[in-house]
């Protein structure tokens, strides 16, 4: 087991490295000269040249790259307007546009993203699984068809349309909810809930639809399994047959997918945050792309990749814990 974790860890590091390299190379090759942007208006060629020297942009690709990577582990120092700025490890760069360390920008915004992601995740997991199980039990009947239509609708509506529509209905027309703002739970739990409920719903709806279909399919398949027939043949109570022999096998794969989805969202729900104006990592991503703030774009890309890769590994390990066939090995 340790050996497996070890080799996975190694793989993870390699993938992260390759992602960093790839992303860095893309920016290096494709983006506009950052020195020009930083310089802003009233720029002279000498100043551009000066900035380029300061940033080390005259150096070859690999030097710059290793500089960046080195910064991730040991920190770097930046020259900004004559003063030096310390960037502690892991150094994700310095945003000249906002005059902030990228790391600080992200750290400020992570809690909001996490709140949105986790809240929505709980909603969609519960909603999706319950709807899926009900659909499977009442297969072909009205409830099943109703959920089928509902999920189809949910998957078809674009995120932002739903967000605006819900905002209009619940905030503007009915006045039940405030315009969503980032309220801290510790400040005011009730307001926190009321503010985040809309973003949660908007984000959860699409996923819930997928989870409903997935759960439904899994449960229907599992009910056909021979071991369910065995359980019934033993005269077990229906509740036991359901919990142990139908739901457990059917839902286990879903839990692992759930891990991956949440991990992906931690990198930021770009559209949801932007539409609601919530300052999470997602909105940061959108803003920085519009502004072409390279260090930030680079950093959020890395962050996202990091979460996904770690999530993947966690899910893998989770699988060895919950599926006996993976955990032990056939010794027959």
């Amino acid at each position, binding site marked *: 087991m340790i050996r497996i974790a070890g080799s996975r860890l190694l793989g993870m590091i390699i993938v992260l490295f390759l992602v960093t390299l790839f992303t860095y190379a893309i920016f290096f090759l494709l983006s506009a000269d950052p020195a020009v942007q930083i310089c802003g208006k009233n720029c002279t060629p000498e100043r551009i040249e000066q900035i380029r020297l300061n940033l080390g942009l005259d150096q070859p690709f690999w030097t710059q790259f290793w500089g960046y990577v080195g910064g991730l582990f040991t920190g770097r120092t930046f020259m900004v307007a004559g003063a030096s700025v310390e960037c502690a490890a892991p150094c994700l760069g310095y945003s000249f546009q906002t005059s902030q360390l990228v790391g600080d920008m992200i750290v400020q915004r992570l809690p909001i993203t996490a709140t949105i992601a986790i809240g929505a995740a709980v909603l969609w997991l519960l909603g999706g699984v319950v709807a899926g199980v009900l659909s499977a039990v009442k297969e072909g009947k009205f409830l099943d068809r109703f959920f089928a239509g509902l999920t189809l609708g949910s998957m078809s509506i674009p995120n932002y349309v739903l967000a605006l529509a819900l905002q209009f209905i619940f905030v503007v027309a009915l006045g039940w909810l405030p315009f969503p703002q980032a309220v801290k739970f510790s400040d005011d739990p009730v307001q926190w809930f009321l503010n985040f409920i809309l973003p949660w719903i908007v984000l959860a709806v699409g996923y819930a639809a997928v989870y409903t279909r997935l759960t439904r399919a899994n449960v229907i398949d599992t009910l056909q399994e021979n071991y369910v027939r*065995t359980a019934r043949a033993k005269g077990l109570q229906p509740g036991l047959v359901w919990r142990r022999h139908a739901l457990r096998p059917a839902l286990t794969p879903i839990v692992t997918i759930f891990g991956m989805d949440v991990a992906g969202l931690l990198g930021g729900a770009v559209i949801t945050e932007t539409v609601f104006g919530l300052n999470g990592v997602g909105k940061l991503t959108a803003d920085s792309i519009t502004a072409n703030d390279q260090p930030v774009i680079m950093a959020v890309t890395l962050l996202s990749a990091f979460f996904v890769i770690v999530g993947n590994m966690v899910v893998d390990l989770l699988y060895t814990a919950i599926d006996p066939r993976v955990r032990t090995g056939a010794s027959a």
Partner: protein
Amino acid sequence: MTDDVNKNSSPLLSVRDLTVSFRTAQGPVRVVRNLDFDVPRGGALGIVGESGSGKSMTSLSIMGLLPKGGTATGSVRFDGTELLGLAEREMRGVRGDRIAMIFQDPLSSLNPYYKVGTQIAEAYLSHRSGVSRKQARSVAIEAMERVHIRDAARRVDHYPHQFSGGMRQRIMIAMALSMEPDLIIADEPTTALDVTVQAQILDLLSEIRQETGAGLILITHDLAVVSEVTDEIVVMREGVAVERGQVEQVFSDPQADYTRRLLDAVPRIDDEIGLMRTTDILIPSERRSVR
């Protein structure tokens, strides 16, 4: 005759006029038609047929486990109680406790997520009230030992995939046994197993029957197996019983044409010439060349 004698000589299971039909888009389809047979106490009955004969549906209807859309009519009397139409709660009491069933594929018939011991003890915990987990666990170990699984105290905590095919079938038998049923229904229990393992499993079943006096219904397509294991036999074809009687009688002097030709078709290990001369296709699903 006194009541006592009556009870002992009355059959354990008595099936009369059993008809199983399914609702399909083309109307009801009868997969079993007007089936009659008895299983005497402690006796062994073989139900033999090729695919489409309805033999599996017969066993499922006795257990009340027909798939969706299937209905059974007629009479299935088990130890005096009519099973068809019995309330589900009471049927559950019969299943696994008084009538136990063993299926064909032991790997897919066991839940891969739970330990073998858990699955063996499940029935015991369900059917007997006031029983502790510890007790159930020792029942499970005992059942495994009875089916000759070595090192049972340790292997009771193993998962199904950690056993070989033959062992898994033993586990299924242990599950059936743990409740000391009066009747065991085995649906193709050895079809998926190697021949040496098959021999062991069939021996085991005979041993169990001798020890417990349980009755056996063995469902199979293998005439040779049935000839060695059972006393009586019902030959089914397309849902209908074409012949019924003592095994020796049916094999030495079959009355039905189908039985005769089926016997001709079975390859013999000690003879080559003479018997495999079947040239007609016997089962209608093969005759209908295009569906």
